[in-house]
């Protein structure tokens, strides 16, 4: 491994402007070493283990050079999650025939998401954080794709199911204001602040079990929307806590309501 590490580092130093030698060292001594040990413990044939490790290191060095992989104190993305944590942890447990493909899949997913809308990056990050392993990455991507972007099969109906989503748990001082849909089931909630420049926005995936996606960096300025008065009236009748609706955004399948005096967003889902 030593020669390969030195060779990749020397090559990367020549190639990349933003090569981070410290991060590379940390990766080699941490996750890469853990992967090497785990592959050995899993009794993978040496030649195969070497190939997996080389693929992992080669792609990781490229990721550092391109700025896809960054130190944990800067933040987290799908790249850092998969290369620093998920791959070293779960790769040895996969069938040998799947290991190299999974390394390649993680790279492709991470790189493609770098060019995808922020909400999609956040969505995959939040879902992958919950994963124990990368056993069926392909199926996971297909499911998320279908559920987050495709048109849901059920429409909202007259009396939708109510789910309360606490945005204060994500950002302590966040007070939900205007909101809009960025995908059929993905809601972007803007902070209610008079100085709009500082206002942030949080994403919520209105899945069966709604998932807060975190900061969206949305630059849109959604206007106040209250064209679904029927939904808001119905909500007020059914939920005493929701009688001070501030804003509502709805599509055929989902709706979100912010309240005057709450950090919660009320998600309306098909019953």
């Amino acid at each position, binding site marked *: 491994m030593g020669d390969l590490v030195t060779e990749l580092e020397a090559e990367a*130093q*020549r*190639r*990349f*402007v*933003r*090569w981070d030698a410290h991060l590379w060292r940390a990766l080699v001594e941490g996750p890469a070493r853990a992967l090497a040990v785990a592959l050995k413990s899993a009794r993978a044939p040496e030649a*195969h283990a070497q*190939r997996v490790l*080389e*693929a992992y290191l*080669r*792609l990781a060095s*490229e990721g550092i*050079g391109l700025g896809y992989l960054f130190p944990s104190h800067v933040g987290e993305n799908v790249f850092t999650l998969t290369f620093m944590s998920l791959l070293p942890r779960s790769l040895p447990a996969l069938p040998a025939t799947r290991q*190299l*493909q999974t*390394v*390649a*899949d993680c*790279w*492709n*997913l991470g*790189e*493609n*998401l770098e*060019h*995808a*809308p922020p909400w*999609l990056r956040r969505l995959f990050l939040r879902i992958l954080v919950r994963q124990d392993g990368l056993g069926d*990455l*392909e199926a996971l*991507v297909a499911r998320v*794709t279908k559920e987050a*972007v*495709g048109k849901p099969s059920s429409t909202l109906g007259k009396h939708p199911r109510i789910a309360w989503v606490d945005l204060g748990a994500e950002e302590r001082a966040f007070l939900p204001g205007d909101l809009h849909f960025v*995908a059929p089931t993905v809601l972007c909630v803007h902070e209610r602040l008079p100085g709009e420049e500082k206002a942030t926005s949080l994403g919520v995936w209105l899945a069966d079990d709604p998932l807060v996606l975190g900061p969206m960096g949305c630059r849109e300025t959604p206007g106040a929307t209250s064209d679904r008065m029927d939904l808001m009236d119905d909500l007020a009748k059914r939920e005493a806590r929701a009688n001070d609706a501030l804003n509502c955004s709805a599509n055929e399948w989902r709706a979100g309501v912010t309240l005057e005096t709450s950090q919660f967003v009320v998600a309306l889902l098909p019953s």
Partner: protein
Amino acid sequence: MPQDSLLSRLLEGRAKVAPDLTVHLSDRDGKDLHDKMRQAYWWIVNNAILCPYYDVEYGQRSNLKNNSGDEVLLHDSMSYSSFVLVPMLTLFSCRRALLIGGPGRGKTTSAILMALLSGMTRDEVRRSIQRGHPQLTIADLLGAPLPSDMLKAEDMSAIKIGWRKWISQRVKIIDEYNRIPTKTQSALLSLMAEGYAEMFDQYVYAGRSSWFLTANDDAGGGTFQVIEALKDRIDVVVRAVPFSSAFLETLLKRIEADKTPEELVPRDVVFTTEELEQIYAAILAVELGEDVRERLGFFLGQLDFCRMASPQFEAKSKDTLKLAGQSVSAVCNEQCPLDKKVHLCTQTENGVSARAYQTGLHFAKALAYFRGHTVVELEDVRQIVPFVLHEKLVPNGRSPFFEAKGRRVLLQDRVAWIRHMFDMAMEQYPKHEPVRRKVRALREELDQGLEGVELKTAQKRIAQVTSLMEQLMKGQELSGPVYEDLIHLKSMYSRYQNYAHWLKQSAAR
């Protein structure tokens, strides 16, 4: 890209498992080229040129002042160093830059770095640099006929020319161009201006290329006077900046490592020919909206005007003075009623050519592209125009404008002076804009064509044009912008009159 299309390909990408069971990563395509440009820029600033002077600035500004009136401006958005940025924009827009400044300030290094970014090897760059010196002949510069052909040839077409290789390279570096003898400068001029060189009825073409010329002192300090036409072909001027002692440690490390910055250019920021072509095309495709265009026109259009140049209306330009061997400073006096503190025409000895307009537009687009934008902002124009006009505008040092407190210093710094003029023009623009809008509306009507326009309609439009001209003549003093509008309106008037005259003649036949 549609979301479903993107999602269907989330697991497809550059990483593939090859049949030999290795993971192969293919090259990136060109979709992040402006990001790559910025990476190259930051690498140069942080590792090669060591430049702490950030003078191309964006965003809201705040200032720090001391009691003596010295001021430091702090902007809240991205800032760049012109000494690195402008050569880079020259490289990507295939233009011609002159880098001026004292010896050892990094002019040649900057030009070499640009050549390396374009994919040339260090050996190629070293061999292709043309170093100006008093004995440089046309043959040294361009090449020479093959001696054996000279003896055997019965006509000129049989003489083969051994053209110098640098001529067809994408990046051309002429070091100390003001040390080149005048005759050789003329050969250089045709190569720079027309893109080809000729010898014994044979031609060599320069192709699409970026030029970097350096000079220690462009104000006559070279061995030879640079011919005006050659100077005029230079699109942009960049001033070298002094070394900052804050970077002394980096210099020490370079000595200890025995490496020059040129040896360390990362491959990641080297552009292929295809990438350079893609960027060139993408820069041209950057949008420049009507408002920005109008404002730039408002600024540049008034510089050529001189009310005192001629009694004839059409000849009130600084060109008239120049052709008569006169200067603005000689006629810009109290006999001209225009307020010299307000009107820009007093500040310059000349106006700018159509070539300068084009260069300004091209560089503004390049700057917007570099910043990752698809549309040029007014601030892009404001930032880049001083470098484009640096050698093109000559200040009228005797103008009363420069006599006011704090203005004299502008004569020493052309970038600051031109930017100051630009700002003055932008302050004046809103006041004049309603007139411009009316002129534009009349122009748009004319641009729709005269086919099928009846005599009655033409006469109605003549009346509208005349009425607006009358308003301008009576309601406003004859300043640069008003003069431009009047000239424009008069051209419309003449076109309609010619058309009406033709209609009448046709009817009479």
